[in-house]
């Protein structure tokens, strides 16, 4: 019960108890398995209720008012919308004309745009279910316009090998925040794309340079004419003919593989640093009226979060390996005999499949309980808010929106928190 409302500057605290979060996630993972995924609506709601309620901004905690049944209903509506769409693409694929040939690409693009539409609508649902000091957040603006913008930006980012990404994020974030309100207090985003670009450029070069070396070596060494002839000639042993046409190709392939793994390794090592950079840049650009945010997030804190994940992952691997040995022995007993019935086969398949699901869900749970929770906590606790006196006279505005966007995002696999 601090008296932050009267002061100008305030911070953010995370009050959550990690043990309670672990309990929530482990129970959720077990129920996901039992219900074959239907429990996800309840788990997502529990997770949000926990994260929101334990995030205290200037002395008051957030509140999440969404319900699992809303999410379930939104998902069912999304299924009703998507079934005719999928059926249409299915029928179009049967058509032999140019439409049929293109239908795969068209479906990919259309579902991509629809995914971005869903992302925007889902954000709207989450914002209108976020309550702070008795007022809700909300979001206006056309989701289709956002989808168009986002799709064009993704295309630009793809064509520039990721160099346009900072400008994409800045532009899309400006769009989102311009249409975001806390009560009647309008939001905006002040982050500049080129700042992120300049800071991220060294990391981009570090990852892309080895790939560029590999590509360069290919262009330099390979005799393309001979290679094309060898490929066109075909025959039983294309590989040996290619090698005959280009004696140095073996060395180049080895070099390319080396460079490729270097790039992968660097990407993995630099990922936390990139995430810290993004998070710091993004949260420092958020504004609501006179309220400004500034992040003091440190890169090594984010590395710490990932080290935690690594440590718990190793622990989980050891436990999983012990259980795997037991399960394999059980499987051997079930299928070891000469005559195994269909029942034994089904049991063995179920054990294998169950083991896989447990491992996959286990890793996802460990990741959420360590890296993701730490990132949430670090991101929030590193925030400094100024201009908080504006909080005394914000008026209520906006209404709760439907969960169809969340349902679409779920059905299209583009969900977030």
């Amino acid at each position, binding site marked *: 019960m601090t008296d932050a409302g009267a002061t100008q500057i305030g911070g953010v605290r995370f009050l959550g108890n990690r043990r309670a979060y672990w309990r929530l996630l482990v129970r959720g993972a077990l129920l996901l398995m039992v*219900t074959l995924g*239907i429990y996800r609506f309840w788990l997502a709601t529990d997770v949000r209720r926990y994260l929101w309620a334990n995030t205290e901004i200037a002395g008051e905690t957030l509140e999440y008012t969404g319900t699992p049944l809303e999410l379930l209903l939104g998902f069912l509506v999304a299924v009703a919308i998507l*079934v005719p769409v999928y059926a249409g693409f299915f029928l179009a694929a049967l058509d032999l004309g140019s439409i049929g040939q293109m239908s795969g690409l068209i479906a990919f693009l259309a579902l991509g745009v629809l995914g971005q539409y869903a992302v925007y609508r889902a954000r709207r649902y989450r914002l209108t279910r976020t*309550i702070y000091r008795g007022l809700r957040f909300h979001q206006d603006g056309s989701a289709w316009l956002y989808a168009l913008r986002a799709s064009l930006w993704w295309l630009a980012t793809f064509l520039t090998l990721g160099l346009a990404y900072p400008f994409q994020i800045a532009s899309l974030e400006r769009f989102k925040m311009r249409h975001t309100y806390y009560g009647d207090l309008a939001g905006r985003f002040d982050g500049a794309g080129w700042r992120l670009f300049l800071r991220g450029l060294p990391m981009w070069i570090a990852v892309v340079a080895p790939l560029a070396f590999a590509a360069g070596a290919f262009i330099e060494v390979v005799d393309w004419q001979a290679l094309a002839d060898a490929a066109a000639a075909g025959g039983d042993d294309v590989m040996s003919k290619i090698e005959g046409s280009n004696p140095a190709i073996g060395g180049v392939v080895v070099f390319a593989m080396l460079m490729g793994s270097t790039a992968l390794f660097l990407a993995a090592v630099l990922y936390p640093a990139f995430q810290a950079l993004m998070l710091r840049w993004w949260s420092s650009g958020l504004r609501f009226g006179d309220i400004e945010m500034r992040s003091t997030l440190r890169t090594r804190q984010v590395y710490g979060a990932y080290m935690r994940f690594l440590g718990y992952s190793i622990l989980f691997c050891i436990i999983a390996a012990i259980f795997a040995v037991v399960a394999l022995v059980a499987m051997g007993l079930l299928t070891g005999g000469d005559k195994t019935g269909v029942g034994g086969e089904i049991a063995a*398949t179920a054990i294998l499949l169950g083991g896989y699901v447990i491992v996959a869900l286990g890793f996802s749970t460990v990741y959420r309980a360590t890296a993701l929770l730490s990132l949430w906590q670090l991101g929030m606790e590193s925030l400094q808010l100024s201009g908080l006196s504006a909080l005394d006279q914000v008026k*209520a505005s906006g209404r709760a929106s439907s969960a169809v966007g969340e349902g679409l995002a779920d059905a299209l*696999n583009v969900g977030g928190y």
Partner: protein
Amino acid sequence: MTSGAGIYFDGMTSARHDVAVVLSPDALQIAGGDGRWLAAWTYDELEEMAAPANVLRLGRRGNAVLERLEIFDAEFAAAVVARAVNIDRTGTRQRRQRGSVIGWSVAATASLLLVAWFGVPALAARIAPLLPVAVDRKLGDAVDIQMRGMLDPRNSGTAFECGSADSEKAGRTALDKIVRRLEASAALPETLRTFVVRRTEANAMALPGGQVYVFRGLIDKADTADEVAGVIAHEIGHVAHRDGTKAVLQAGGLSFLFGMLLGDFVGGGAVVIAAKTVLQSSYSREAEAAADAYGAALMNRAGGNVHALATMLGKIGGATEPGMTILLDHPETKARVAAINSVAGAKSTTPFLDAKEWAALKRICAG
């Protein structure tokens, strides 16, 4: 304890009010710092909202205005909860809801599995005959392009199909003789297009729309023309049952049931793939058994030797099949051979080709 301190938000502005809360017999009353009454909530409309563990956050049930009252003192919070009929801090209600989610999910999964096991093949069997033959043909053409891309190695310089070169023409004529005799007894809704293709596996397949591919490996392995005819009769069974179209409908139905409604969680993809594989294998086993029965009956009608089909299947299938029974896409060879032999007619049979024609068919891919 009937009074305590709290923080109140009126839901109209974000202003924070430090308030005194009084629990009167019929309502929870909220008084501002100046002693003015700000609100009175009856106990049955109190609802607990999400909050940190040490805070009781109250709202009013079904109220569009987001009024909130926060109580930090644990003892006083307990006194409020004791009066509020709709607040359950023991978690009983949550547990009950979770239980019903599990119950209904299990029921939904069971009913989906039943639909997938019985409903999807039954529906596909009902829908496939209703579709116009043109749909089959279109589908077949699309599959044909894919199959050729996969099967045709494109390196021999000769055509993928056998029977067009001069030295192969006689073989083509022999093949046509077999197909015509079978087709005359089959009465199909669409005309067959049968090809021998340059693949060394002993196999044959039917595409939707009446296309039948016989691999040259099958002809190499056959000892009589009736063995080839028997396999073609089996493939005609697939065409007559429209199995290609059925398989597409079945795959679509399964994708919808499992891909969309179930299994959307980490690791769920594997469950969906496994369930689809097992189910599709079982559909396929049924289709193969039905095509065997059709092929045997057709051989009987055409005056061919039914045992030749069984012999050929025995050769292709080999002695034992490795792997799991639930993943086999056709019944076990022993059972197939027995089933076919059991329907063989007693009357005498006429060979499909004479020795000269049979020798020509053997050379259909010689060019």
